[in-house]
């Protein structure tokens, strides 16, 4: 009994006014420290087990860095999507000019036959894993310019495309929808990408 009482904190019920020393002791009493304890340490012994491709796919989809490849009018809507009104940065998407460090190539605009070798070269310069988003009607199948013989009727005649975003130009919300579809595709295909 005596031990328990000694363990408890002393509660002062003053029957006389406190002295200066006692008031100071009261003021300077340190806080009660509650040591944080991780729940998972009680549940799991400090190791999370998850499939590697799951983690890699989650990491890749959450920080897709597109190469700025705005060719034509769709580039303006792509820029609008990056800007503060329809922020794409909250998805982890940061526009990056160099193809060597980019994950995604957004082909925004018409690909002409003069530009085709440059498109292929840039695609080959990107390291794996890489994805391509064909933004707009022109990149999908030539768009309003499909009947001109100097226009490549869709960028999928040159490089493999993962997501097509239709529109002329597609709204920034449509581009966001395309990115979300790409993220779902990355998760779905996680077993097949290295």
């Amino acid at each position, binding site marked *: 009994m005596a031990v328990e009482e000694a363990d408890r904190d002393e509660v002062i019920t003053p029957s006389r006014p406190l002295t200066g020393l006692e008031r100071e002791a009261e003021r300077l009493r340190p806080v009660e420290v509650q040591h944080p304890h991780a729940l998972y340490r009680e549940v799991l012994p400090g190791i999370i087990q998850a499939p590697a491709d799951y983690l890699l796919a989650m990491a890749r989809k959450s920080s897709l860095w597109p190469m700025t490849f705005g060719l034509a009018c769709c580039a303006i809507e792509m820029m609008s999507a990056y800007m503060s009104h329809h922020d794409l940065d909250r998805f982890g998407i940061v526009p990056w000019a160099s193809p060597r460090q980019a994950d995604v190539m957004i082909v925004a605009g018409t690909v002409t*036959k*003069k530009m085709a070798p440059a498109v292929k070269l840039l695609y080959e310069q990107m390291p794996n894993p890489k994805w391509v988003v064909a933004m707009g009607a022109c990149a999908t*199948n*030539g768009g309003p310019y*499909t*009947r*001109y*013989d*100097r*226009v490549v*009727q*869709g960028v999928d005649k040159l490089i493999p495309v993962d997501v097509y975003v239709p529109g002329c130009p597609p709204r920034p919300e449509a581009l966001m929808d395309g990115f979300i579809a790409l993220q779902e595709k990355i998760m779905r295909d996680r077993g097949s990408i290295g």
Partner: protein
Amino acid sequence: MTSPHEGPQEAPIVPPPPGTIADLFQEVLPDVEFTATQGAGDVILIIARDDVPRVLRTAKDEPRLDLKYLRCLLGIDHMEGGLEVVYQLYSFTHGHGVTIKTRLPLDDPRVASATPIWKGADWLERETAEMFGITFEGHPNPVPLLLPDDLTDHHPLRKDNPFAQMEEWQGMRLGDEASKVGHIPAGYESIAGEGGEEDGG
């Protein structure tokens, strides 16, 4: 193939009212043959191909004309009528402008270059040359401007140059009724207009 019009009709030659820039040109160059007509906006002067360098040089240097600003340079393909080169000029000091045209025969499409006169004619002539196959004599740098260097076998803006084929639609084969250009799906005939594109797949 470009759709045939109901027979292309030329605009009638309407002589401009007196006091316009056509009279000024006639005064300054009395020995050059002009055909002056009043277009929808400006006065149009039609001259022969060989007079082109002299007329353009005079148009720029003569103080009464002072047409120092070359606004536009284009070519027109008139099929059997030959090719045509059009110059659109303007003067800031006098505030007047004129359109000068000249016809070139189909088998010999050469004309003197306007680049020595206006520096801005450089790129415009390059573009007209590659689009129509016109040779501008005296041009300092006659390489194609807009078309790729290795694909200049034909000239796109000539009328005998067809449009590209539309690629076949997903799931349909070329030759299917529904994949023909101008096909109207069942149930929509009432709101579709008559006509549409005459050229099919």
